Protein backbone atom coordinates (compact mmCIF):
# COMPACT_ATOMS: atom_id res chain seq x y z
CA UNK A 1 0.00 0.00 0.00
CA UNK A 2 2.98 2.28 0.49
CA UNK A 3 4.85 0.86 -2.51
CA UNK A 4 7.11 3.40 -4.25
CA UNK A 5 5.26 5.08 -7.06
CA UNK A 6 7.73 4.52 -9.90
CA UNK A 7 7.01 5.61 -13.41
CA UNK A 8 5.22 2.72 -15.04
CA UNK A 9 3.48 1.49 -11.90
CA UNK A 10 -0.11 0.39 -12.28
CA UNK A 11 -2.85 0.49 -9.67
CA UNK A 12 -4.84 -2.68 -9.10
CA UNK A 13 -7.05 -4.14 -6.40
CA UNK A 14 -6.19 -7.53 -4.96
CA UNK A 15 -8.74 -9.26 -2.73
CA UNK A 16 -8.65 -12.38 -0.59
CA UNK A 17 -11.54 -14.55 0.54
CA UNK A 18 -12.28 -17.90 2.15
CA UNK A 19 -9.63 -17.50 4.87
CA UNK A 20 -6.74 -16.42 2.62
CA UNK A 21 -7.03 -12.92 4.10
CA UNK A 22 -5.53 -14.36 7.28
CA UNK A 23 -2.26 -14.84 5.40
CA UNK A 24 -2.34 -11.22 4.25
CA UNK A 25 -2.45 -9.22 7.50
CA UNK A 26 -6.16 -10.06 7.89
CA UNK A 27 -7.06 -7.54 5.19
CA UNK A 28 -9.55 -8.65 2.55
CA UNK A 29 -8.87 -5.82 0.15
CA UNK A 30 -5.44 -4.50 -0.85
CA UNK A 31 -5.06 -1.54 -3.18
CA UNK A 32 -1.63 -1.99 -4.72
CA UNK A 33 0.62 -0.06 -6.99
CA UNK A 34 2.81 -2.56 -8.78
CA UNK A 35 5.50 -2.37 -11.50
CA UNK A 36 3.98 -2.69 -14.97
CA UNK A 37 6.91 -4.87 -16.08
CA UNK A 38 8.36 -7.93 -14.40
CA UNK A 39 12.06 -8.43 -13.69
CA UNK A 40 12.73 -9.48 -17.30
CA UNK A 41 10.98 -6.43 -18.71
CA UNK A 42 7.94 -8.37 -19.90
CA UNK A 43 4.45 -7.00 -19.20
CA UNK A 44 3.19 -8.07 -15.80
CA UNK A 45 1.02 -11.16 -15.91
CA UNK A 46 -0.97 -12.90 -13.18
CA UNK A 47 1.70 -15.56 -12.76
CA UNK A 48 4.20 -12.90 -11.82
CA UNK A 49 1.67 -11.12 -9.61
CA UNK A 50 1.39 -14.27 -7.50
CA UNK A 51 5.17 -14.28 -6.97
CA UNK A 52 5.10 -10.53 -6.28
CA UNK A 53 2.38 -10.94 -3.64
CA UNK A 54 4.33 -13.74 -1.98
CA UNK A 55 7.53 -11.70 -1.82
CA UNK A 56 6.21 -8.22 -1.12
CA UNK A 57 2.76 -8.33 0.45
CA UNK A 58 2.51 -11.61 2.37
CA UNK A 59 3.99 -11.23 5.84
CA UNK A 60 3.00 -14.73 6.97
CA UNK A 61 5.75 -17.35 6.80
CA UNK A 62 3.35 -20.09 5.72
CA UNK A 63 3.91 -19.48 1.97
CA UNK A 64 2.81 -23.02 1.12
CA UNK A 65 -0.74 -22.16 2.15
CA UNK A 66 -0.80 -19.80 -0.85
CA UNK A 67 1.77 -21.03 -3.38
CA UNK A 68 2.81 -24.55 -4.32
CA UNK A 69 5.28 -25.43 -7.10
CA UNK A 70 5.44 -21.84 -8.30
CA UNK A 71 1.72 -21.30 -8.74
CA UNK A 72 -1.30 -20.85 -6.48
CA UNK A 73 -1.93 -24.04 -4.54
CA UNK A 74 -4.81 -26.39 -5.42
CA UNK A 75 -8.06 -25.28 -3.83
CA UNK A 76 -7.58 -21.59 -4.63
CA UNK A 77 -9.60 -20.00 -7.42
CA UNK A 78 -8.13 -16.96 -9.13
CA UNK A 79 -10.75 -14.58 -10.44
CA UNK A 80 -9.94 -11.74 -12.76
CA UNK A 81 -12.58 -9.01 -12.83
CA UNK A 82 -15.24 -11.40 -11.48
CA UNK A 83 -14.43 -14.27 -13.86
CA UNK A 84 -12.51 -17.51 -13.40
CA UNK A 85 -8.94 -16.89 -14.63
CA UNK A 86 -9.27 -19.93 -16.86
CA UNK A 87 -11.62 -17.81 -18.96
CA UNK A 88 -8.87 -15.18 -19.25
CA UNK A 89 -5.77 -17.23 -20.06
CA UNK A 90 -4.71 -18.12 -16.52
CA UNK A 91 -1.19 -17.06 -15.57
CA UNK A 92 -0.50 -15.46 -18.93
CA UNK A 93 -3.22 -12.82 -18.52
CA UNK A 94 -1.54 -9.41 -18.68
CA UNK A 95 -2.66 -7.17 -15.87
CA UNK A 96 -4.34 -3.91 -16.86
CA UNK A 97 -4.63 -0.78 -14.71
CA UNK A 98 -7.69 -0.96 -12.47
CA UNK A 99 -7.98 -4.74 -12.63
CA UNK A 100 -9.53 -6.59 -9.72
CA UNK A 101 -7.86 -9.89 -8.90
CA UNK A 102 -9.63 -12.05 -6.33
CA UNK A 103 -8.11 -15.11 -4.68
CA UNK A 104 -10.67 -17.44 -3.12
CA UNK A 105 -9.83 -20.45 -1.02
CA UNK A 106 -12.45 -23.14 -1.33
CA UNK A 107 -14.29 -23.93 1.90
CA UNK A 108 -15.25 -27.39 3.08
CA UNK A 109 -17.25 -26.91 6.26
CA UNK A 110 -20.93 -27.71 6.33
Amino acid at each position, binding site marked *: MSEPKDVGDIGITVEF*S*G*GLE*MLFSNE*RKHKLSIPAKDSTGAPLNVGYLVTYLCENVM*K*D*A*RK*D*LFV*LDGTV*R*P*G*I*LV*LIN*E*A*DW*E*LEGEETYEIQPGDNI*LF*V*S*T*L*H*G*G
Partner: protein
Amino acid sequence: MAPLPVVELLQHQIASCEAQLRDLRQQLAEAQHLQHIRTQEQDRLRHTSTSGDPLTHDMTYGIHDEFRSEVFAALSQGEDVPLRAATKWPLEKNEYKRYGRQLIMPEIGLQGQLRLKNSSVLIIGVGGLGCPAAAYLVGAGVGTVGLVDGDVVEESNLHRQILHSTGKVGMTKVDSAKIFLSSLNPNVKIATHTARLSPESAITTLQPYDLVLDCTDTPASRYLISDTCVLLGKPLVSASALRTDGQLMVLNNPPLPAGDIRGGPCYRCVFPKPPPPESVVSCGDGGILGPVVGLMGVLQALEAIKVITKGPHTSDSSSPDPPSLLIFSAYASPMFRAIRLRSRRQKCAACSAQATVTAKALNSGSLDYVQFCGSISPVDMLGPNERISVDNYAKIRMEVNPFTGMEPSKDSHILIDVREKVQFELCNLEGSVNIPFSGVSSTPHSTSNDNESEPSWISDLRKHPDKPIFVVCRLGNDSQLSVRKLKEHNLDFGGNRFIGDIKGGLRAWRENIEPDFPEY
Protein backbone atom coordinates in the same frame (compact mmCIF):
# COMPACT_ATOMS: atom_id res chain seq x y z
CA MET B 1 -16.56 -31.00 47.89
CA ALA B 2 -16.78 -31.72 44.17
CA PRO B 3 -19.74 -33.97 43.25
CA LEU B 4 -18.88 -37.61 42.61
CA PRO B 5 -18.64 -38.48 38.92
CA VAL B 6 -21.56 -40.91 39.23
CA VAL B 7 -23.77 -38.21 40.73
CA GLU B 8 -22.87 -35.86 37.94
CA LEU B 9 -23.46 -38.55 35.36
CA LEU B 10 -26.90 -39.33 36.74
CA GLN B 11 -27.83 -35.66 36.93
CA HIS B 12 -26.77 -35.28 33.34
CA GLN B 13 -28.77 -38.33 32.27
CA ILE B 14 -31.88 -37.12 34.05
CA ALA B 15 -31.57 -33.68 32.47
CA SER B 16 -31.17 -35.28 29.07
CA CYS B 17 -34.19 -37.58 29.55
CA GLU B 18 -36.30 -34.67 30.74
CA ALA B 19 -35.37 -32.64 27.70
CA GLN B 20 -36.20 -35.61 25.48
CA LEU B 21 -39.53 -36.02 27.24
CA ARG B 22 -40.39 -32.36 26.67
CA ASP B 23 -39.53 -32.83 23.04
CA LEU B 24 -41.72 -35.93 22.73
CA ARG B 25 -44.64 -34.17 24.49
CA GLN B 26 -44.43 -31.37 21.99
CA GLN B 27 -44.37 -33.80 19.10
CA LEU B 28 -47.33 -35.66 20.59
CA ALA B 29 -49.26 -32.40 20.91
CA GLU B 30 -48.55 -31.63 17.27
CA ALA B 31 -49.57 -35.12 16.17
CA GLN B 32 -52.81 -34.96 18.21
CA HIS B 33 -53.60 -31.59 16.75
CA LEU B 34 -53.08 -32.98 13.25
CA GLN B 35 -55.28 -36.00 14.01
CA HIS B 36 -57.98 -33.71 15.37
CA ILE B 37 -57.99 -31.63 12.18
CA ARG B 38 -58.20 -34.75 10.03
CA THR B 39 -61.10 -36.17 12.03
CA GLN B 40 -62.94 -32.89 11.71
CA GLU B 41 -62.35 -32.88 7.98
CA GLN B 42 -63.67 -36.43 7.61
CA ASP B 43 -66.73 -35.63 9.71
CA ARG B 44 -67.43 -32.64 7.58
CA LEU B 45 -67.13 -34.68 4.37
CA ARG B 46 -69.45 -37.38 5.68
CA HIS B 47 -71.88 -34.76 6.81
CA THR B 48 -72.05 -32.92 3.49
CA SER B 49 -72.33 -36.15 1.54
CA THR B 50 -75.56 -37.12 3.33
CA SER B 51 -78.05 -34.72 4.82
CA GLY B 52 -77.02 -31.40 3.36
CA ASP B 53 -76.32 -32.63 -0.16
CA PRO B 54 -78.86 -31.19 -2.59
CA LEU B 55 -78.43 -34.28 -4.72
CA THR B 56 -79.73 -36.41 -1.87
CA HIS B 57 -82.74 -34.20 -1.66
CA ASP B 58 -83.32 -34.49 -5.39
CA MET B 59 -82.85 -38.22 -5.33
CA THR B 60 -85.42 -38.61 -2.63
CA TYR B 61 -88.05 -36.18 -3.78
CA GLY B 62 -87.34 -34.81 -7.23
CA ILE B 63 -86.43 -37.66 -9.54
CA HIS B 64 -88.86 -39.82 -11.29
CA ASP B 65 -88.72 -43.45 -10.18
CA GLU B 66 -87.77 -44.67 -13.66
CA PHE B 67 -84.60 -42.64 -13.75
CA ARG B 68 -83.59 -43.24 -10.17
CA SER B 69 -81.90 -46.59 -10.74
CA GLU B 70 -79.92 -45.23 -13.69
CA VAL B 71 -78.72 -42.26 -11.71
CA PHE B 72 -77.70 -44.54 -8.84
CA ALA B 73 -75.75 -46.76 -11.22
CA ALA B 74 -73.88 -43.79 -12.70
CA LEU B 75 -73.04 -42.43 -9.26
CA SER B 76 -71.90 -45.75 -7.88
CA GLN B 77 -69.20 -46.10 -10.56
CA GLY B 78 -67.35 -43.22 -9.02
CA GLU B 79 -67.37 -44.80 -5.59
CA ASP B 80 -64.09 -46.67 -6.15
CA VAL B 81 -62.36 -43.36 -5.72
CA PRO B 82 -62.84 -42.26 -2.11
CA LEU B 83 -62.68 -38.52 -2.71
CA ARG B 84 -64.05 -37.33 -6.00
CA ALA B 85 -62.07 -34.11 -5.62
CA ALA B 86 -58.83 -36.05 -5.99
CA THR B 87 -59.60 -37.01 -9.54
CA LYS B 88 -60.81 -33.62 -10.58
CA TRP B 89 -57.98 -31.47 -9.15
CA PRO B 90 -54.32 -32.31 -9.69
CA LEU B 91 -53.38 -31.46 -6.10
CA GLU B 92 -55.01 -32.59 -2.87
CA LYS B 93 -57.27 -30.08 -1.21
CA ASN B 94 -54.86 -29.49 1.67
CA GLU B 95 -52.04 -28.91 -0.77
CA TYR B 96 -53.75 -25.91 -2.36
CA LYS B 97 -53.94 -24.35 1.07
CA ARG B 98 -50.51 -25.37 2.29
CA TYR B 99 -48.65 -24.28 -0.82
CA GLY B 100 -51.00 -21.42 -1.70
CA ARG B 101 -48.46 -18.67 -1.08
CA GLN B 102 -45.96 -20.18 -3.51
CA LEU B 103 -48.61 -21.55 -5.92
CA ILE B 104 -49.76 -18.03 -6.80
CA MET B 105 -46.26 -17.06 -7.88
CA PRO B 106 -45.61 -17.27 -11.62
CA GLU B 107 -42.21 -18.86 -10.92
CA ILE B 108 -43.96 -21.87 -9.37
CA GLY B 109 -47.64 -22.09 -10.32
CA LEU B 110 -49.51 -25.37 -10.57
CA GLN B 111 -46.99 -26.81 -13.02
CA GLY B 112 -44.08 -25.99 -10.71
CA GLN B 113 -45.85 -27.44 -7.68
CA LEU B 114 -46.56 -30.66 -9.55
CA ARG B 115 -42.92 -30.85 -10.56
CA LEU B 116 -41.89 -30.41 -6.93
CA LYS B 117 -44.39 -33.07 -5.86
CA ASN B 118 -43.11 -35.52 -8.44
CA SER B 119 -39.46 -34.88 -7.65
CA SER B 120 -37.04 -36.45 -5.23
CA VAL B 121 -34.03 -34.74 -3.66
CA LEU B 122 -31.16 -36.37 -1.80
CA ILE B 123 -29.56 -34.32 0.96
CA ILE B 124 -26.13 -35.63 1.88
CA GLY B 125 -25.12 -34.37 5.31
CA VAL B 126 -27.77 -33.33 7.83
CA GLY B 127 -25.75 -30.64 9.57
CA GLY B 128 -25.52 -26.87 9.29
CA LEU B 129 -26.30 -26.86 5.56
CA GLY B 130 -28.54 -29.91 5.35
CA CYS B 131 -30.92 -28.92 8.15
CA PRO B 132 -32.21 -25.63 6.71
CA ALA B 133 -32.08 -27.02 3.16
CA ALA B 134 -34.24 -29.99 4.19
CA ALA B 135 -36.70 -27.82 6.10
CA TYR B 136 -37.36 -25.58 3.09
CA LEU B 137 -37.55 -28.41 0.56
CA VAL B 138 -39.94 -30.39 2.74
CA GLY B 139 -41.91 -27.23 3.40
CA ALA B 140 -42.14 -26.55 -0.35
CA GLY B 141 -43.62 -29.99 -1.00
CA VAL B 142 -40.84 -31.95 -2.72
CA GLY B 143 -42.29 -35.46 -3.09
CA THR B 144 -39.44 -37.42 -1.55
CA VAL B 145 -36.53 -36.14 0.46
CA GLY B 146 -33.67 -38.53 1.23
CA LEU B 147 -31.27 -37.91 4.09
CA VAL B 148 -27.75 -39.34 4.37
CA ASP B 149 -25.66 -38.97 7.52
CA GLY B 150 -23.83 -41.37 9.80
CA ASP B 151 -23.41 -39.01 12.75
CA VAL B 152 -25.37 -38.52 15.95
CA VAL B 153 -26.56 -35.18 17.30
CA GLU B 154 -24.07 -33.42 19.57
CA GLU B 155 -24.63 -30.43 21.79
CA SER B 156 -22.13 -28.38 19.78
CA ASN B 157 -24.35 -28.85 16.68
CA LEU B 158 -27.39 -27.14 18.11
CA HIS B 159 -26.49 -23.49 17.48
CA ARG B 160 -26.80 -24.04 13.73
CA GLN B 161 -28.37 -27.42 12.94
CA ILE B 162 -31.95 -26.30 13.31
CA LEU B 163 -33.74 -29.65 12.91
CA HIS B 164 -32.10 -31.09 16.01
CA SER B 165 -32.90 -30.12 19.56
CA THR B 166 -31.60 -30.48 23.09
CA GLY B 167 -33.60 -33.62 23.83
CA LYS B 168 -32.25 -35.34 20.72
CA VAL B 169 -28.57 -35.22 21.68
CA GLY B 170 -27.27 -38.73 21.05
CA MET B 171 -29.99 -39.61 18.51
CA THR B 172 -28.85 -40.19 14.91
CA LYS B 173 -29.07 -37.02 12.85
CA VAL B 174 -31.27 -38.65 10.21
CA ASP B 175 -33.78 -39.88 12.83
CA SER B 176 -33.84 -36.51 14.53
CA ALA B 177 -34.34 -34.74 11.20
CA LYS B 178 -37.07 -37.19 10.16
CA ILE B 179 -39.10 -36.46 13.30
CA PHE B 180 -38.94 -32.73 12.66
CA LEU B 181 -39.62 -32.95 8.94
CA SER B 182 -42.52 -35.42 9.19
CA SER B 183 -44.28 -33.12 11.58
CA LEU B 184 -43.51 -30.10 9.40
CA ASN B 185 -45.12 -31.66 6.33
CA PRO B 186 -46.68 -35.14 6.47
CA ASN B 187 -47.22 -35.07 2.68
CA VAL B 188 -43.51 -35.57 2.04
CA LYS B 189 -41.92 -39.00 2.07
CA ILE B 190 -38.69 -38.96 4.08
CA ALA B 191 -36.15 -41.68 3.21
CA THR B 192 -33.26 -42.19 5.61
CA HIS B 193 -29.77 -43.57 5.07
CA THR B 194 -28.00 -43.80 8.42
CA ALA B 195 -24.44 -44.10 7.19
CA ARG B 196 -21.68 -42.05 5.73
CA LEU B 197 -21.68 -42.15 1.91
CA SER B 198 -18.95 -44.49 0.60
CA PRO B 199 -17.72 -45.06 -2.96
CA GLU B 200 -19.31 -48.52 -2.90
CA SER B 201 -22.70 -47.22 -1.75
CA ALA B 202 -22.74 -43.98 -3.72
CA ILE B 203 -24.36 -45.12 -6.97
CA THR B 204 -27.15 -47.15 -5.36
CA THR B 205 -27.83 -44.37 -2.86
CA LEU B 206 -28.01 -41.54 -5.41
CA GLN B 207 -29.69 -43.48 -8.23
CA PRO B 208 -33.36 -43.04 -7.23
CA TYR B 209 -33.14 -39.24 -6.85
CA ASP B 210 -33.58 -36.43 -9.35
CA LEU B 211 -31.26 -33.92 -7.73
CA VAL B 212 -28.54 -33.98 -5.07
CA LEU B 213 -27.50 -31.48 -2.40
CA ASP B 214 -23.93 -31.72 -1.17
CA CYS B 215 -24.13 -30.60 2.46
CA THR B 216 -21.01 -32.46 3.59
CA ASP B 217 -17.85 -31.11 5.13
CA THR B 218 -14.81 -32.84 3.61
CA PRO B 219 -13.05 -32.59 0.24
CA ALA B 220 -13.20 -36.38 -0.16
CA SER B 221 -17.01 -36.49 0.05
CA ARG B 222 -17.30 -33.51 -2.32
CA TYR B 223 -15.32 -35.28 -5.07
CA LEU B 224 -17.22 -38.54 -4.48
CA ILE B 225 -20.62 -36.88 -4.70
CA SER B 226 -19.71 -34.85 -7.79
CA ASP B 227 -18.30 -37.90 -9.60
CA THR B 228 -21.41 -39.95 -8.82
CA CYS B 229 -23.71 -37.14 -10.00
CA VAL B 230 -21.84 -36.98 -13.33
CA LEU B 231 -22.02 -40.77 -13.75
CA LEU B 232 -25.77 -40.80 -13.02
CA GLY B 233 -26.61 -37.54 -14.80
CA LYS B 234 -27.96 -35.67 -11.75
CA PRO B 235 -27.63 -31.94 -11.17
CA LEU B 236 -25.75 -31.10 -7.97
CA VAL B 237 -26.19 -28.12 -5.67
CA SER B 238 -23.01 -27.77 -3.66
CA ALA B 239 -22.39 -25.40 -0.75
CA SER B 240 -19.89 -24.95 2.03
CA ALA B 241 -19.26 -22.57 4.89
CA LEU B 242 -16.59 -21.71 7.43
CA ARG B 243 -16.31 -18.93 10.00
CA THR B 244 -18.08 -15.97 8.34
CA ASP B 245 -17.85 -17.11 4.69
CA GLY B 246 -19.95 -19.30 2.45
CA GLN B 247 -19.78 -20.57 -1.14
CA LEU B 248 -22.44 -21.98 -3.46
CA MET B 249 -22.29 -23.63 -6.89
CA VAL B 250 -24.82 -25.46 -9.04
CA LEU B 251 -22.79 -28.15 -10.78
CA ASN B 252 -23.42 -30.60 -13.62
CA ASN B 253 -26.35 -28.49 -14.75
CA PRO B 254 -27.53 -29.34 -17.33
CA PRO B 255 -26.55 -32.90 -16.37
CA LEU B 256 -25.48 -34.07 -19.82
CA PRO B 257 -23.38 -37.22 -20.33
CA ALA B 258 -19.59 -37.07 -19.87
CA GLY B 259 -17.97 -35.74 -23.03
CA ASP B 260 -20.86 -33.42 -23.92
CA ILE B 261 -19.34 -29.96 -23.57
CA ARG B 262 -22.79 -28.37 -23.30
CA GLY B 263 -23.20 -29.95 -19.88
CA GLY B 264 -22.45 -27.92 -16.76
CA PRO B 265 -19.01 -28.19 -15.14
CA CYS B 266 -18.49 -30.64 -12.30
CA TYR B 267 -16.57 -30.17 -9.03
CA ARG B 268 -13.43 -31.60 -10.66
CA CYS B 269 -13.66 -29.08 -13.51
CA VAL B 270 -13.50 -26.27 -10.97
CA PHE B 271 -11.03 -27.97 -8.61
CA PRO B 272 -9.09 -30.61 -10.58
CA LYS B 273 -6.66 -31.15 -7.71
CA PRO B 274 -7.64 -31.46 -4.04
CA PRO B 275 -6.30 -28.85 -1.64
CA PRO B 276 -3.32 -29.85 0.52
CA PRO B 277 -4.81 -31.40 3.69
CA GLU B 278 -3.07 -28.89 5.96
CA SER B 279 -5.01 -26.08 4.26
CA VAL B 280 -8.39 -27.70 5.02
CA VAL B 281 -10.03 -26.24 8.13
CA SER B 282 -13.13 -27.79 9.71
CA CYS B 283 -15.93 -25.91 11.51
CA GLY B 284 -14.75 -27.59 14.72
CA ASP B 285 -11.31 -26.01 14.37
CA GLY B 286 -12.08 -22.76 12.56
CA GLY B 287 -15.52 -22.03 13.97
CA ILE B 288 -18.78 -21.26 12.21
CA LEU B 289 -21.49 -18.66 12.66
CA GLY B 290 -24.95 -20.28 12.61
CA PRO B 291 -26.71 -17.86 10.25
CA VAL B 292 -23.80 -18.03 7.77
CA VAL B 293 -24.06 -21.77 7.22
CA GLY B 294 -27.85 -21.55 7.57
CA LEU B 295 -27.99 -19.00 4.78
CA MET B 296 -25.96 -21.23 2.48
CA GLY B 297 -28.29 -24.17 3.20
CA VAL B 298 -31.33 -22.01 2.48
CA LEU B 299 -29.74 -20.93 -0.81
CA GLN B 300 -29.20 -24.60 -1.70
CA ALA B 301 -32.91 -25.24 -1.20
CA LEU B 302 -33.68 -22.22 -3.37
CA GLU B 303 -31.41 -23.37 -6.20
CA ALA B 304 -32.92 -26.86 -5.96
CA ILE B 305 -36.44 -25.42 -6.28
CA LYS B 306 -35.31 -23.37 -9.29
CA VAL B 307 -33.81 -26.41 -11.04
CA ILE B 308 -36.81 -28.66 -10.29
CA THR B 309 -39.55 -26.21 -11.25
CA LYS B 310 -37.79 -25.28 -14.46
CA GLY B 311 -38.40 -28.81 -15.68
CA PRO B 312 -36.23 -31.17 -17.68
CA HIS B 313 -33.53 -29.64 -19.83
CA THR B 314 -34.17 -29.72 -23.54
CA SER B 315 -31.37 -28.72 -25.87
CA ASP B 316 -33.45 -26.26 -27.87
CA SER B 317 -34.97 -24.42 -24.90
CA SER B 318 -33.07 -21.67 -23.11
CA SER B 319 -30.08 -23.15 -21.33
CA PRO B 320 -29.64 -22.68 -17.56
CA ASP B 321 -27.77 -19.71 -16.16
CA PRO B 322 -24.06 -19.85 -16.96
CA PRO B 323 -22.10 -21.63 -14.22
CA SER B 324 -21.20 -19.35 -11.38
CA LEU B 325 -19.83 -19.36 -7.87
CA LEU B 326 -21.67 -17.31 -5.28
CA ILE B 327 -19.42 -16.04 -2.52
CA PHE B 328 -20.85 -14.79 0.75
CA SER B 329 -18.78 -12.95 3.34
CA ALA B 330 -20.74 -11.76 6.36
CA TYR B 331 -18.24 -9.04 7.26
CA ALA B 332 -17.38 -7.80 3.76
CA SER B 333 -19.15 -5.11 1.81
CA PRO B 334 -21.01 -6.05 -0.27
CA MET B 335 -21.76 -9.37 1.42
CA PHE B 336 -22.54 -11.22 -1.82
CA ARG B 337 -20.64 -11.51 -5.06
CA ALA B 338 -21.09 -13.84 -7.99
CA ILE B 339 -18.19 -15.06 -10.06
CA ARG B 340 -18.41 -16.53 -13.56
CA LEU B 341 -17.01 -20.04 -13.66
CA ARG B 342 -15.43 -21.97 -16.49
CA SER B 343 -17.40 -24.51 -18.51
CA ARG B 344 -16.54 -28.22 -18.58
CA ARG B 345 -12.82 -28.92 -18.59
CA GLN B 346 -11.62 -30.66 -21.75
CA LYS B 347 -9.58 -33.21 -19.84
CA CYS B 348 -11.75 -33.52 -16.74
CA ALA B 349 -11.28 -36.90 -15.05
CA ALA B 350 -15.04 -37.16 -14.47
CA CYS B 351 -17.07 -35.33 -17.11
CA SER B 352 -14.92 -35.23 -20.26
CA ALA B 353 -14.67 -37.72 -23.11
CA GLN B 354 -11.44 -38.96 -21.50
CA ALA B 355 -13.04 -39.52 -18.10
CA THR B 356 -11.27 -42.07 -15.95
CA VAL B 357 -13.86 -42.08 -13.18
CA THR B 358 -16.25 -44.87 -14.14
CA ALA B 359 -19.16 -46.60 -12.46
CA LYS B 360 -17.17 -49.83 -12.43
CA ALA B 361 -14.21 -48.22 -10.67
CA LEU B 362 -16.53 -46.59 -8.16
CA ASN B 363 -18.49 -49.76 -7.36
CA SER B 364 -15.37 -51.87 -6.99
CA GLY B 365 -14.03 -49.49 -4.37
CA SER B 366 -10.81 -48.97 -6.34
CA LEU B 367 -11.23 -45.18 -6.15
CA ASP B 368 -9.85 -44.08 -2.82
CA TYR B 369 -11.12 -40.56 -2.22
CA VAL B 370 -9.62 -40.27 1.22
CA GLN B 371 -6.19 -41.11 -0.15
CA PHE B 372 -6.77 -38.80 -3.15
CA CYS B 373 -7.39 -35.90 -0.81
CA GLY B 374 -4.74 -36.91 1.69
CA SER B 375 -5.07 -36.56 5.42
CA ILE B 376 -3.09 -35.16 8.28
CA SER B 377 -2.10 -37.86 10.70
CA PRO B 378 -1.98 -36.85 14.36
CA VAL B 379 1.23 -34.98 15.05
CA ASP B 380 3.85 -37.17 16.73
CA MET B 381 7.07 -35.30 16.16
CA LEU B 382 8.61 -34.95 19.61
CA GLY B 383 10.81 -37.34 21.54
CA PRO B 384 9.79 -38.66 24.97
CA ASN B 385 12.16 -36.20 26.68
CA GLU B 386 10.29 -33.30 25.06
CA ARG B 387 6.88 -34.28 26.37
CA ILE B 388 5.11 -34.41 29.70
CA SER B 389 1.82 -36.05 30.66
CA VAL B 390 -0.95 -33.99 32.20
CA ASP B 391 -0.55 -35.99 35.43
CA ASN B 392 3.10 -35.08 35.77
CA TYR B 393 2.43 -31.48 34.81
CA ALA B 394 -0.28 -31.32 37.47
CA LYS B 395 2.29 -32.51 40.01
CA ILE B 396 4.60 -29.68 38.98
CA ARG B 397 1.80 -27.22 39.53
CA MET B 398 0.44 -28.70 42.73
CA GLU B 399 3.10 -30.83 44.30
CA VAL B 400 6.83 -31.11 44.51
CA ASN B 401 8.50 -31.17 41.10
CA PRO B 402 9.27 -34.85 40.38
CA PHE B 403 12.35 -33.86 38.36
CA THR B 404 13.98 -31.19 40.52
CA GLY B 405 12.45 -31.80 43.92
CA MET B 406 11.45 -28.14 44.03
CA GLU B 407 8.41 -26.85 45.86
CA PRO B 408 5.50 -25.98 43.58
CA SER B 409 5.32 -22.43 42.48
CA LYS B 410 3.68 -20.63 39.60
CA ASP B 411 6.97 -18.91 38.92
CA SER B 412 8.99 -22.09 38.66
CA HIS B 413 8.27 -22.47 34.96
CA ILE B 414 6.68 -20.82 31.94
CA LEU B 415 3.43 -22.24 30.60
CA ILE B 416 2.69 -21.16 27.03
CA ASP B 417 -0.82 -21.63 25.69
CA VAL B 418 -0.65 -21.52 21.87
CA ARG B 419 -4.39 -21.44 21.18
CA GLU B 420 -5.69 -18.38 19.35
CA LYS B 421 -6.43 -15.38 21.56
CA VAL B 422 -10.22 -15.74 21.42
CA GLN B 423 -10.00 -19.35 22.64
CA PHE B 424 -7.48 -18.43 25.32
CA GLU B 425 -9.88 -15.81 26.64
CA LEU B 426 -12.64 -18.44 26.92
CA CYS B 427 -10.73 -20.42 29.51
CA ASN B 428 -7.11 -20.96 30.42
CA LEU B 429 -4.86 -22.37 33.08
CA GLU B 430 -3.87 -19.86 35.72
CA GLY B 431 -0.50 -18.32 35.04
CA SER B 432 -0.33 -19.34 31.39
CA VAL B 433 0.93 -16.95 28.74
CA ASN B 434 -0.88 -16.73 25.42
CA ILE B 435 1.33 -16.90 22.32
CA PRO B 436 -1.06 -17.86 19.48
CA PHE B 437 0.08 -20.60 17.12
CA SER B 438 -0.63 -18.41 14.10
CA GLY B 439 2.00 -15.98 15.37
CA VAL B 440 4.46 -18.73 16.25
CA SER B 441 4.17 -20.46 12.88
CA SER B 442 4.20 -17.27 10.82
CA THR B 443 7.41 -15.95 12.39
CA PRO B 444 10.15 -16.60 9.85
CA HIS B 445 13.07 -18.71 10.87
CA SER B 446 15.71 -16.19 11.86
CA THR B 447 18.85 -16.63 9.77
CA SER B 448 21.03 -14.06 11.48
CA ASN B 449 21.59 -13.22 15.14
CA ASP B 450 19.78 -9.98 14.55
CA ASN B 451 17.63 -10.13 17.69
CA GLU B 452 16.26 -6.64 17.24
CA SER B 453 13.94 -7.57 14.42
CA GLU B 454 12.47 -10.55 16.24
CA PRO B 455 9.00 -10.27 17.72
CA SER B 456 8.63 -9.36 21.37
CA TRP B 457 7.32 -12.77 22.40
CA ILE B 458 10.67 -14.32 21.44
CA SER B 459 12.77 -11.74 23.25
CA ASP B 460 10.53 -12.04 26.32
CA LEU B 461 11.17 -15.78 26.42
CA ARG B 462 14.92 -15.18 26.21
CA LYS B 463 14.81 -13.16 29.44
CA HIS B 464 14.36 -16.17 31.71
CA PRO B 465 16.84 -18.78 30.43
CA ASP B 466 16.56 -20.82 33.65
CA LYS B 467 12.84 -21.53 33.56
CA PRO B 468 11.59 -24.64 31.78
CA ILE B 469 8.91 -23.99 29.16
CA PHE B 470 5.77 -26.10 28.85
CA VAL B 471 3.58 -25.64 25.79
CA VAL B 472 -0.11 -26.49 25.79
CA CYS B 473 -2.87 -26.25 23.15
CA ARG B 474 -6.40 -27.58 22.69
CA LEU B 475 -5.66 -31.16 21.61
CA GLY B 476 -1.89 -31.54 21.64
CA ASN B 477 -0.93 -31.06 17.98
CA ASP B 478 -0.07 -27.36 17.68
CA SER B 479 1.83 -27.61 20.96
CA GLN B 480 4.30 -30.07 19.39
CA LEU B 481 4.78 -27.93 16.30
CA SER B 482 5.31 -24.93 18.57
CA VAL B 483 7.99 -26.71 20.62
CA ARG B 484 9.86 -27.37 17.37
CA LYS B 485 9.52 -23.70 16.40
CA LEU B 486 10.73 -22.44 19.77
CA LYS B 487 13.79 -24.64 19.46
CA GLU B 488 14.41 -23.35 15.93
CA HIS B 489 14.63 -19.92 17.48
CA ASN B 490 17.18 -21.37 19.93
CA LEU B 491 15.02 -20.60 22.93
CA ASP B 492 16.34 -23.79 24.53
CA PHE B 493 19.87 -22.33 24.40
CA GLY B 494 21.30 -25.32 22.61
CA GLY B 495 19.51 -27.85 24.80
CA ASN B 496 20.25 -26.18 28.16
CA ARG B 497 16.64 -25.36 28.89
CA PHE B 498 13.73 -27.81 28.84
CA ILE B 499 11.06 -27.02 26.26
CA GLY B 500 8.31 -29.60 25.93
CA ASP B 501 4.62 -30.01 25.25
CA ILE B 502 1.80 -31.21 27.45
CA LYS B 503 0.56 -34.44 25.88
CA GLY B 504 -3.07 -34.38 24.77
CA GLY B 505 -3.46 -30.67 25.51
CA LEU B 506 -6.29 -29.15 27.49
CA ARG B 507 -8.60 -31.99 26.51
CA ALA B 508 -6.38 -34.43 28.42
CA TRP B 509 -6.18 -31.90 31.27
CA ARG B 510 -9.97 -31.84 31.53
CA GLU B 511 -10.31 -35.62 31.23
CA ASN B 512 -7.66 -36.48 33.79
CA ILE B 513 -7.14 -33.54 36.14
CA GLU B 514 -9.83 -30.88 36.16
CA PRO B 515 -13.28 -32.10 35.01
CA ASP B 516 -14.73 -28.59 35.41
CA PHE B 517 -12.38 -27.11 32.83
CA PRO B 518 -14.72 -25.95 30.03
CA GLU B 519 -15.14 -28.12 26.94
CA TYR B 520 -15.98 -26.18 23.80
